[in-house]
């Protein structure tokens, strides 16, 4: 039983190692900023998830008591990862995209990041 547990724990640790590596490698390899964001938002979910599952299994098989507060880390990760990715995407749109380079926004006419009131003073301000 203990051996089977160790085997399972090692499996999840290896899986998380592989996906953690892919996430960081993707950040280097992919060519444009928007594509780069795909690697860390996805591959790291399974990377971190694997470590947390391994940690829960370790507490069950080796330490002989149930520990579930790893689930909270998963919960917080699922809340924070999309929000930070969204911030970076908005920054990218703000600095590097124009309304013409994005697809048509339908009835609303323009995407929220480009929905800024024209300010005459802003043109003179240093960037």
């Amino acid at each position: 039983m203990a051996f089977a547990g160790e085997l399972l724990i090692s499996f999840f640790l290896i899986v998380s190692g592989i996906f953690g590596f892919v996430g960081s490698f993707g950040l280097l390899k992919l060519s444009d900023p928007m594509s780069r964001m795909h690697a860390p938002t996805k591959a790291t979910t399974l990377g971190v998830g694997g470590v947390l599952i391994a940690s829960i299994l370790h507490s069950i098989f080796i330490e002989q008591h149930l520990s579930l507060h790893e689930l909270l880390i998963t919960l917080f990760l699922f809340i924070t990862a999309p929000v930070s990715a969204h911030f970076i995407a908005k920054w990218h749109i703000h600095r590097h995209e124009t309304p013409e380079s994005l697809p048509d926004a339908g009835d609303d006419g323009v995407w929220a990041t480009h929905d800024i009131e024209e300010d005459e003073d802003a043109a003179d301000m240093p960037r």
Partner: protein
Amino acid sequence: MRLLRRIFPHPFLTLLLTLVWQLLVNDLSLNSLLFGFFLGIVIPVVTMPYWPNRPKLQNIPMVIEYILVVLYDIVVANIAVARIVLFKPDAARTPAWVRIPLELRSPEAIAVLAGTITMTPGTLSADLSAKGHSLLVHCLDTDDPEAVRDEIKQRYERRLKEIFE
């Protein structure tokens, strides 16, 4: 009944906070259970002004189905993205922007949809249109942006509509 509503204005939040407190303490005892329940009563009452139009969850089995579908998709998404990152040369990849017209109206439902899109296969939610009627999504690698749009609408938005509206 009205007294009960005064004490528990938000019964799901009370339950969730009690549960999260148990997980934080990581030890089930009468002490932590009582204190978690105390927090579960106080926090909803104190934060009441911040959610005047809170959504009602309509369909609890659908919530569970949605969570399972998303968890499964996250695993598939990880493998798909890993294959693209490791084996596909950058020149052969075709990234694309996709516009998703939204039928959802409640801000909470749109937030959940945007978060789900970011966590699942090769898509990333990037922006909302000026009045919130469409969502801008970036695809890592797609030949057919319309199929991506239809899948998101069919797989996630339909379920969220049943949950929130």
